[in-house]
């Protein structure tokens, strides 16, 4: 993500061609796939073939087949139905984390970018130190402080993302504040806080959305990673990561339990990354 941030440290070009996103099939495919995933998220009942928590010990560890499309796990639960129902938790953790990261980062970045030199210096040194740590490590530290569970994992990953967004917002804020129209506003007697709301925020929004769309992918990876380590949702709640963890001990006999949710994570991350990249190309152009 840090290489992306470097690319985005410039004001967004407002000349992006609208509709270009929809014209190329390579750009359309991830959008369609994500729309399908969103549909599954909102209406899991339409897609699940079994109740996700219904156990059937007689049908435990069945390979994929007609009755169970993706097989069953050690308790005889249908892997496909669990995958469908796990979509909501996996994506809510990632989206929640991204929102926390964007919100915290925007606040911190605005304070640093619009505040005095000392505030800026102090905040940015903290951000620099945090940027040195891998996101998963930062998230692990926060989980160690707060404990595990769905909400805490989202908070942890969100917190780990804050420095990235803060750096972006701070850079944009500095650029906008130095621009002539803000100076003109100041001459006209517009107070500083109004300039921040009316001029800085809207200009920061575009690049922030681009970075967030790429950050969403890494939030999904980090979130499922924490769940794989057993720190995520508490059973019987399950996201894709905790499904991977469940199947880890049965790889020798029943590979499908872990492989299917891992594939789901990868597909969604590929889609968000592709969308993020095309947004980024439009912004840089």
């Amino acid at each position, binding site marked *: 993500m840090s290489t992306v941030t470097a690319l985005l440290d410039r004001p967004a070009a407002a000349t992006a061609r609208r509709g270009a996103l929809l014209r190329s099939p390579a750009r359309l495919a991830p959008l369609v796939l994500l729309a399908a995933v969103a549909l599954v998220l909102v209406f899991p009942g339409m897609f699940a073939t079994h109740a996700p928590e219904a156990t059937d010990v007689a049908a435990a560890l069945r390979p994929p087949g007609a009755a169970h499309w993706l097989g069953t796990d050690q308790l005889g639960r249908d892997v496909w139905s669990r995958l469908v129902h796990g979509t909501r938790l996996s994506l809510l953790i990632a989206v929640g984390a991204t929102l926390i990261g964007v919100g915290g980062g925007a606040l911190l970045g605005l304070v640093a970018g619009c505040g005095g030199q000392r505030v800026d210096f102090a905040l940015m040194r903290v951000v620099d130190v945090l940027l040195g740590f891998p996101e998963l490590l930062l998230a692990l530290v926060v989980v160690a402080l707060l404990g595990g569970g769905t909400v805490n994992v989202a908070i942890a990953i969100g917190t780990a993302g804050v420095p990235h967004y803060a750096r972006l917002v701070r850079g944009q804020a500095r650029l906008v504040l130095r621009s002539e129209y803000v100076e003109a506003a100041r001459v006209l007697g517009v107070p500083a806080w109004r300039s921040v709301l009316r001029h800085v925020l809207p200009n920061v929004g575009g690049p922030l959305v681009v970075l967030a769309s790429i950050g969403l992918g890494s939030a999904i990876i980090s979130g499922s990673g924490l769940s794989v380590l057993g720190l995520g949702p508490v059973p019987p709640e399950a996201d894709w990561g905790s499904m991977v963890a469940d199947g880890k001990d049965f790889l*020798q006999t029943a590979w499908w339990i872990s492989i299917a949710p891992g594939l789901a994570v990868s597909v969604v991350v590929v889609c968000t990354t592709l969308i993020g990249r095309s947004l980024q190309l439009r912004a840089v152009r």
Partner: protein
Amino acid sequence: MSDRARLVPRRRVPPWARFVARRLAAGLVVVWGTLTVTFFALHLAPGDIVDGLIGPGAAATPALRDQVIAENGLDDPLLVQYGRQLAQLASGGLGWSYQLNEPIERLLGSQLGPTVELAVSALITALVLAVLAATLTAGRGRVVRGAAGLAELLMVSMPSFWLGIILLTVFSYRLHALPSIGADGPAALVLPTLALALPLAGVLAQVIRQELESADGRPFVLTARSRGLGATAVLLRHTLRHALLPLTTLAGFVLGSLFGGAVLVENIFTRPGLGRVLANAVGSRDLPVVSALVVISSAAFVLINTLVDVLHPLIDPRLREGGTA
């Protein structure tokens, strides 16, 4: 005379040594800051430290609680405890693990080897794969570059734990070619190395290929070609060196992704190592171990970045003093 007296001792310290000293001092401030933040976060965190020390096994009677508080000096003011921790760290001690009842430096010392082994072999593998992939695909036709771009995208998007699970399923449980768990011998290192190296190779290959392509047609390449060097010789002797330079600035990122990845990969492959220690410590909220690992990784991060800044002018003549960049 007085001017001379002031100048002479200054000249004895070469500029690079002063540069290193300044960087290390700044790094020490970073490590101190990390330690301070983790110390206060640890003491302000929800949940009682005394309960953590007693552990879930024993009944926390008031007498036992008082004993634990007295033994660990937990009734001292926070600043006194903070000073004690700094003094302890200065003498090389990292503290005491809540859960494992062992000095942390001994615990980490025994686990450091396997992680370093894994990280180094993954780093070498990732570099070799990335250089190979980049040199073979740079400047080729649309199809080759498209395929390479897709492969890199997949490598970057696949979580390392899933890659590990696929490798385990295919090579250990289906083909019975490689061991699935443990850290005995080189065969046990192959699969974890790949799981850790492939995502990293995806990132590095993108960077190297971009550099290789931007070098194409640059004056130094044309000069070398006009001296009669073949395309391969130019690639090996000039272009590749140019393309590998930016990688040194990624050293901190690489270190971070290796350690972050090791947490998951060691867990999947049931390998001993620092990553598993961290995951277990987080799971059991063994806060002294977590903060010790945070301080150590910030120190490692500072060291690697200082090293990069020192080595950079040695690798790139343009950055030497007096040179024009």
